[in-house]
């Protein structure tokens, strides 16, 4: 079954440290997305990608970078982590072949101390 997986599932980082969150999809979708979810709220889009080599800014890109080295993999990078980036991060994939229905990973809980 097609799937979106994320690693790590939980991460504790220190302020100022570098954090990389990884996402892998076997859906063969062109588009991939990174969202964050803060307590009591819906998901908000950070970065997305149309395919290998492409990254685009979402609605809240400040403090984050993204990398799409292949069709299957999409990373979210926090170069200098801050406590305000403590959140749950979700990755998703989708494209025209799925009519843009998005398929979500299980989430990564990040705590920045």
């Amino acid at each position: 079954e097609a799937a979106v997986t994320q690693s790590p599932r939980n991460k504790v980082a220190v302020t100022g440290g570098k954090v990389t969150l990884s996402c892998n999809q076997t859906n063969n979708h062109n588009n991939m997305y990174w969202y964050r979810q803060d307590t009591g709220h819906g998901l908000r889009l950070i970065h997305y990608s149309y395919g290998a080599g492409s990254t685009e800014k979402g609605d809240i890109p400040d403090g984050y970078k993204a990398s799409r080295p292949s069709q299957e993999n999409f990373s979210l990078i926090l170069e200098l982590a801050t406590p305000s980036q403590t959140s749950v991060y979700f990755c998703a994939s989708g494209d025209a072949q799925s009519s843009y229905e998005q398929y979500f990973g299980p989430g990564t809980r990040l705590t920045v101390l």
Partner: protein
Amino acid sequence: GMPVEQNPPALSLYEGADSGLRCNFSTTMKSVQWFQQNHRGRLITLFYLAQGTKENGRLKSTFNSKERYSTLHIKDAQLEDSGTYFCAAEGTNTGKLTFGDGTVLTVKP
């Protein structure tokens, strides 16, 4: 206003009751997805709609792009229906989703 307004913010039902959730959109949206987020935080896709109505068991969802709303109806609520329900709408063919803030549903015995 918010691009996606979801109501009510919280809902409490007794087992066996029926109820509905609603999302209103500030602009025309091309599609909507409904999710249940369980106690472990996992997002479970309930429906994807580009138009019209879909049913799945005790759940039914409608999307009216012209009138800018979508609804999710739950029939004969069960304890396992408890969780947070989100709608998310796509406004362009980038596939970018805008989420509502969710409805926290509690089903009581």
